[in-house]
């Protein structure tokens, strides 16, 4: 509870008071002065209700804050919670091993799968080690190498997307960030195996899409997916990064918006207040969603899988034609 209280976002401040009261009630109760268990329960209910109320009317920029929450479960959290027999595979066999993008083999309910995802940290130190989840070209090339293993051995692929974007650094440019992402897009389109992508936090532009061309693309309720960060968009188009709220609204970056646009296939529910309030619960929801979506794909032939993915992305675009 302490953790949740500490990590309240700005707009969640009304909760702070309730949490404080809850603490008091618990203290009294545990001191044995009187039985407050009913009151504790009621207060917990009130907190949950307020959280629910807050969730319902979240603005896009508030959802951005949840999507970026420092305690938000990461790829390796979900791997541990919803998969078994995981072994991480390292390296692109070219240049390096990118800690910002993890890959490996695992089992999902007995099914051998390939899993990959951007990896953020939960502390500054971890985040520095993970480059804040911003992959370098070697991360995308590792992912491609591992996707080809999946293909060679006919195993489905699951990708978790959670990145502010591909890293914009000198080395990244020199080693071909654009080339690495572009090649992944082309190769993902041609994969002969079922592929499910899940945006779990920040779906940051090409860096997200670089492992995101699933036959099904799912999104957690409070995640975002965008061609540019709201701040970036605001600073370019509105010449003022502080107008990120407007940009977030204008660009349609929430799961709900993207489902309406037909860019994603399904929204995965989150626990009240966001996945970080109950990672286990969130993992359960994700696992069910994967299993449900994977099943029909497993029945498709290699050709059908490629055609399915091609048609999915081929359709995307809105324009007028005379």
């Amino acid at each position, binding site marked *: 509870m302490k953790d949740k209280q500490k990590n309240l976002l700005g707009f969640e401040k009304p909760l702070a008071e309730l949490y404080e009261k809850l603490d008091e009630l618990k203290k009294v109760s545990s001191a044995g002065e009187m039985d407050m268990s009913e009151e504790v329960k009621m207060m917990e209910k009130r907190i949950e209700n307020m959280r629910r109320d807050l969730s319902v009317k979240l603005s896009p920029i508030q959802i951005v804050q949840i999507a970026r929450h420092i305690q938000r479960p990461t790829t390796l959290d979900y791997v541990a919670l919803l998969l078994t027999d995981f072994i991480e595979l390292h390296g692109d066999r070219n240049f390096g091993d990118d800690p910002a993008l993890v890959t490996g083999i695992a089992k999902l309910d007995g099914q051998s799968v390939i899993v990959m995802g951007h990896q953020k940290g939960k502390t500054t130190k971890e985040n520095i080690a993970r480059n804040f989840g911003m992959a370098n070209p070697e991360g995308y090339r590792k992912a491609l190498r591992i996707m080809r293993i999946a293909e060679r051995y006919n195993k489905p692929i699951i990708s978790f997307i959670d990145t502010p974007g591909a890293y*914009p650094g000198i080395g990244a*440019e020199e080693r071909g*960030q*654009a080339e690495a992402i572009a090649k992944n*897009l082309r190769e993902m389109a041609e994969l002969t195996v079922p592929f499910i992508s899940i945006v779990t936090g920040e779906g940051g532009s*090409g860096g997200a*899409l670089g492992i995101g061309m699933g036959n099904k693309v799912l999104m957690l309720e409070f995640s975002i997916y965008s*061609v540019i960060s709201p701040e970036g968009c605001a600073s370019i188009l509105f010449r003022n990064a502080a107008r990120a709220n407007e940009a977030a609204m204008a660009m349609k970056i929430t799961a709900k918006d993207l489902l309406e646009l037909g860019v994603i296939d399904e929204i995965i529910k989150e626990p009240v207040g966001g996945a970080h309030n109950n990672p286990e619960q969130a993992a359960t929801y994700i696992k069910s969603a994967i299993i449900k979506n994977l099943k029909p794909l497993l029945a498709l032939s290699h050709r059908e899988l490629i055609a399915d993915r091609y048609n999915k992305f081929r359709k*995307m675009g809105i324009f007028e034609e005379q």
Partner: protein
Amino acid sequence: MSIHNWFKRKKAQQETAYVRERLDIPGNLWVKCYKCNQAIFTKDLEDNLKVCPKCSYHFKLTAAERIIQITDPNSFKEINQKIVSKDFLNFTDSKSYAQRIEKSILKSNLYDAIVTGLAKISNLPVALGIMDFSFMGGSMGSVVGEKIARLIELALEKKAPVIIFSSSGGARMQEGIMSLMQMAKTSAALGRLRENSLPYISVMTDPTTGGTSASFAMLGDVNMAEPDALIGFAGPRVIEQTIRQKLPPGFQRSEYVQEHGMIDVVCDRRQLRENLSKFLRWFDER
């Protein structure tokens, strides 16, 4: 004026963008080179394919100019000309996207940031796509993505090689996520082309960055680039802000990018047609 009305009025003007013959350079008789600052007689510049005769600076070309420079005379047949962008997000910054589209169409004499079609180069058929930076900075939205995908699908049908000239700042933000999806769409189409062993030559011109470089522009069997073009994923300003240090000299320029392994041939515009012909012949003949 709605796009539809605009179409009607437009019809009276001229059918295709590529018939323009005048080079699009400000000034009349004389022009000042952006790089060497010397005055050049406009006629000399045009005769030199809009390459500065003094310092070889490559001025930007419109799609129409490029078509004239590269294809066999009168061989270019435009396809899918009248696909027009739509402001489906009701996106407004200082202007609405709808207004921007209309203004760009009127100003550029184009329908969007790419012209596609079938043509011949040295008598060999090609499916040709040419981006035009003058239309909203060559940004890629649904129309650019759709026209590229259709071009590639037509090439598959005709068994023709594909050549795409890119000149683009990246994705068109006013279309939000949909502009990102064009990266997937165009790359997937190129995947299909590749599976069918049809050649694709990408020619990167100044600038080729963002979502354009991170999709179709980098995926050539052969990646060519005009000299000194800005080519990269992130823009130089974004990188400087991120790493808080100066960028090395020549960074993200064609020659630098070639040294780092991403470009096969950095080619002066005056040799471009000849080199494209050589490649096409190499692919075409046994």
